[in-house]
């Protein structure tokens, strides 16, 4: 369906990918050269895909032009938010504290309670305001009781001197003893409360579930009470713990995983949507991570569950068993695993003494005296044995195909640190040998960034492809992947090439590197956009290795007949 929309544009019927990089290039004259250069690469396969649809497309174009003018669809397309980018906000600590207070105050007004009680209620409901309000209006008493709150505005915990009071914890009975009771009425002296709360906070790291000291009483010690009975540093620690649990509990917040980073990211992608969206976010400190699974780096286009599956597969020894089944044969009688490391084809199983032929896996007795020469390829038993082996061999080959490419891009992206420092050197060289200023040689650094980004994306496209079923969508995806990979390799090579000091060569280099960088970025954009849309539309079909959490729905696109 989506492809049809794409073709409704007034630009001549070319592939959506191609049109999009025209869009990108509109505001930059220099890019036109690069595009001309790369049109060749694409023409080979992509024109074929769309020739068939020319007639129809022309009709669409006419209608569209009549409706909305020549450029408006393109402009609209550009202004539209990109599917593969999720919106998110980075918050510093004060802002999060404020949000917490605001939420609590809001609920307090709605329910007519003290803000500290509202906060306790919210914490018990993991800050899910809607659910809390829903349940509360159904049954206020039960809801607040399970959350550890007794709502009674007449019972404000404040230090009091109660005549004749004896603290059950320290057994003090001084006449001027200050004591505190939560709304449950269990009264203890302020000193004991202080010690107790401090132990909970400092030793156990507890904050939102500190209960009344009375045995079996589930009433939660609220913020106001804690403030009244502990010192400044403990209170600071308490507030910090509350803040941490606020972010940890909320589905819409996540701490930046970078060490010592104090920012949290707010993103409204719920766990249920993770099968269709990859919420990559970037913290103010520069760390990119996935809001869904918390992994650092950008794992688009793979969804979180595919990433988990893939990393597990790479880490566990499922491939060891695959190797065994691909490189060994089982004794046809007792099933022992045998690896042939030399010698003739007449195998005798060490365990069961069964004699068989290595080549056809059939019993040796039927071979007569034809040693070293098996001509019995089509016996049923032998065919079955070989079939099984061929299957695991193919599975192993398939895995290794994707894994090698995945690992290769990962390795290359890791080496980017080195490339960065090399490029730094090159940049100063360029400055020395030409009239270009510091700002004008930044193109090299930018190009390295582009390469790293693209390689990270490529890396995950291979994990993604491993789990895709073979269909036309996948073929299109792999075309896009190949285009990106080719472009990135070319750019990489340009960056690795030794510098030629002549001024005109440098100018040439700058032009080519910039062109390629822009082209790479646009190809990456195409891959990400296409996969993100596919996820959203449930267009991707996964193979049996995947078994997705949310099933892949019916194919939505299915438009172009691919090569």
């Amino acid at each position, binding site marked *: 369906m989506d492809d049809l929309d794409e073709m409704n544009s007034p630009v001549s019927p070319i592939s959506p990918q191609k049109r999009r990089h025209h869009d990108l290039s509109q505001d930059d004259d220099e890019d036109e050269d690069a595009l001309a250069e790369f049109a060749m690469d694409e023409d080979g396969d992509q024109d074929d895909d769309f020739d068939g649809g020319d007639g129809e497309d022309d009709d669409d174009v006419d209608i569209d032009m009549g409706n909305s003018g020549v450029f408006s669809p393109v402009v609209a397309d550009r202004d539209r938010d990109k599917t593969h980018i999720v919106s998110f906000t980075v918050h510093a600590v004060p802002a999060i504290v404020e949000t917490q207070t605001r939420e609590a105050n809001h609920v307090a007004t709605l329910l007519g309670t003290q803000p500290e009680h509202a906060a306790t209620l919210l914490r018990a409901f993991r800050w899910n305001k809607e659910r809390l309000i829903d349940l509360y209006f159904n049954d206020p008493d039960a809801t607040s009781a399970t959350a550890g709150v007794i709502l009674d505005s007449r019972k404000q915990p404040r230090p009091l001197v109660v005549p004749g009071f004896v603290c*059950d*914890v*320290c*057994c*003090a009975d001084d006449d001027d003893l200050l004591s505190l009771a939560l709304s449950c009425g*269990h009264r*203890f002296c302020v*000193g*004991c409360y202080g*010690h*107790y709360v401090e*132990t909970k906070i400092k030793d156990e790291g507890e904050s939102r579930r500190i209960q009344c*000291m*009375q*045995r*079996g*009483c589930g009433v939660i010690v609220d913020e106001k009470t804690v403030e009244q009975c502990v010192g400044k540093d403990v209170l600071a620690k308490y507030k910090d713990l509350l803040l941490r649990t606020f972010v940890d509990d909320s589905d819409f917040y996540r701490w930046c995983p970078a060490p010592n980073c104090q920012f949290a990211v707010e993103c409204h992608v719920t766990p249920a949507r993770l099968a269709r969206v990859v919420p990559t976010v970037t913290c103010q400190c520069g760390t990119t991570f996935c809001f869904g699974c918390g992994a650092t780096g950008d794992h688009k286009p793979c969804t979180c569950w595919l990433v988990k599956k893939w990393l597990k597969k790479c880490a566990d020894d499922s491939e060891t068993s695959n190797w065994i089944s691909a490189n060994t044969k089982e004794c046809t009688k007792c099933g022992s695993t045998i690896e042939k490391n030399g010698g003739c084809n007449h195998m005798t199983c060490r365990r069961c003494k069964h004699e068989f032929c290595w080549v056809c896996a059939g019993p040796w007795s039927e071979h007569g005296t034809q040693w070293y020469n098996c001509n019995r390829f089509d016996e049923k038993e032998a065919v079955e044995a070989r079939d099984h082996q061929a299957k695991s061999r193919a599975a192993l080959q398939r895995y290794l195909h994707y894994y090698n490419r995945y690992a290769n891009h990962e390795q290359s992206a890791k080496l980017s640190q080195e490339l960065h420092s090399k490029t730094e050197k090159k940049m100063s060289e360029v400055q020395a040998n030409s009239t270009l200023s510091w700002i004008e040689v930044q193109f090299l650094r930018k190009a390295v960034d582009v390469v790293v980004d693209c390689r990270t994306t490529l890396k995950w496209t291979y994990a993604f492809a491993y789990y895709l079923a073979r269909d036309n969508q996948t073929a299109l995806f792999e075309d896009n992947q190949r285009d990106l990979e080719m472009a990135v390799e070319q750019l990489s090579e340009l960056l690795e090439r030794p510098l030629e000091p002549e001024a005109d060569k440098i100018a040439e280099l700058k032009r080519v590197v910039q062109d390629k960088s822009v082209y790479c970025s646009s190809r990456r954009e195409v891959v990400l956009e296409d996969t993100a849309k596919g996820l959203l539309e449930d267009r991707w079909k996964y193979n049996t290795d995947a078994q997705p959490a949310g099933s892949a729905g019916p194919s939505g696109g299915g438009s172009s007949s691919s090569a």
Partner: protein
Amino acid sequence: MSNLSTKRLTKELAELQKKPPGGVTLESADNLSQWVVKVEGAKDTLYQNEVFWLRFTFPSNYPLESPEVVFVRNIPIHPHIYSNGHICLSILYDHWSPALTISSVCLSILSMLSSCTNKERPPDDSRYVAHAAKSPKQTNWAFHDDTV
């Protein structure tokens, strides 16, 4: 020993010596960190006429932290008491409350004994005892049976 725990233990000691609850006697309290309390099986229960000893070891921040409580000398046969004297009782571990006292702990243990209907060791006794830490407080207890 902090001020809080000294004060509280002195008070509890005095209480236990003056008017101990039925079936509970303080056997020895040479210092304020370890006491031994004698408990007698209640009448008309499986433990009638039996005598057991509980050893209380108090941490420095008692009563904020629970005391270590184990049976010594004569270990009762009970589905929640291991043959090394460790007791599986939630108020001694996760559900400890500073408002609990030595007498209330003793009474809880006595009532646990009283409600027993079948004298037997826990099913995993030998496995637990072979690997158990010295103090039961280091064990991660799962409290699955509230009836006994």
